[in-house]
């Protein structure tokens, strides 16, 4: 078939041609300098095929602080099962870990590090078939960078399948697991927590 010429106007390839027919739309973006322990998106529209939650934020938590995403404010134990892989780089070298958990009441973006002084993190969290009453499939990646030098950095990724719950997702709550930790979305550096819908 050979190389095709793309006309300058009309009839050329579109982004949809290159990446598929998916269309990503902004649902809501949260920016604030306030220290809050949790952030909730409620009344999520049920008109998309999947949800994409993207964050660049800071937590003040110190130790082993997992980022937690809980749908529908449902804290029933055993709702979700998941597997997580970590790669941690510290002054003592590189370490790889894997965990499996079947008894959570939330999706848990695990981290393994144990650092003081807070952490900068970014993540991408995708829920497929969120409007259906079937088991939910989730994929996520997380990059965790403790504030300060000579502390371990971490990249984690994982996948989940909902266990005992099959409800459609109408709200998502983001928090940390530490007792008095804050999630801060500093607007000064254009950090944000954004919820997208994918058609």
């Amino acid at each position, binding site marked *: 078939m050979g190389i095709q010429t793309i006309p300058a106007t009309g009839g050329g390839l579109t982004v949809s041609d290159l990446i598929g027919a998916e269309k990503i739309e902004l*649902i*809501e973006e*949260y920016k*604030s300098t*306030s*220290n*809050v*322990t*949790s*952030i*909730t*998106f*409620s*009344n*999520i*529209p049920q008109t998309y095929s999947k949800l994409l939650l993207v964050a660049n934020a800071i937590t003040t938590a110190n*130790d*082993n602080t997992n980022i*937690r995403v809980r749908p529908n404010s449902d*804290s029933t134990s055993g709702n979700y099962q998941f597997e997580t892989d970590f790669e941690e780089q510290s002054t003592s070298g590189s370490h790889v870990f894997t965990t499996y958990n079947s008894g959570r009441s939330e999706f848990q973006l695990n981290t393994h590090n144990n650092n003081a002084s807070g952490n900068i993190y970014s993540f991408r969290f995708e829920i497929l078939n969120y409007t259906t009453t079937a088991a939910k499939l989730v994929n996520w990646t997380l990059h965790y960078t403790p504030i300060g030098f000579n502390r371990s950095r971490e990249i984690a990724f994982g996948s989940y399948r909902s266990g005992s719950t099959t409800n459609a997702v109408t709200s998502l709550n983001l*928090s940390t*697991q*530490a*007792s*008095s930790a804050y999630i801060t979305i500093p607007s000064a550096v254009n950090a944000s927590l954004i*919820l997208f819908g994918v058609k």
Partner: protein
Amino acid sequence: MKPQIAEIDCSTGETVIREMNDEEYAQHLIDVAAWEAEQAEKALENASE
């Protein structure tokens, strides 16, 4: 004083930052207790290794 939380209503675009109500605070304490129990368990495992 209870922790502050942010709530974004996707149907209106309105963001509210408020104190946790009693029910939310009770759940928060349950979550924190579970997390602290996990940390204590990990510490015991690490100590026995």
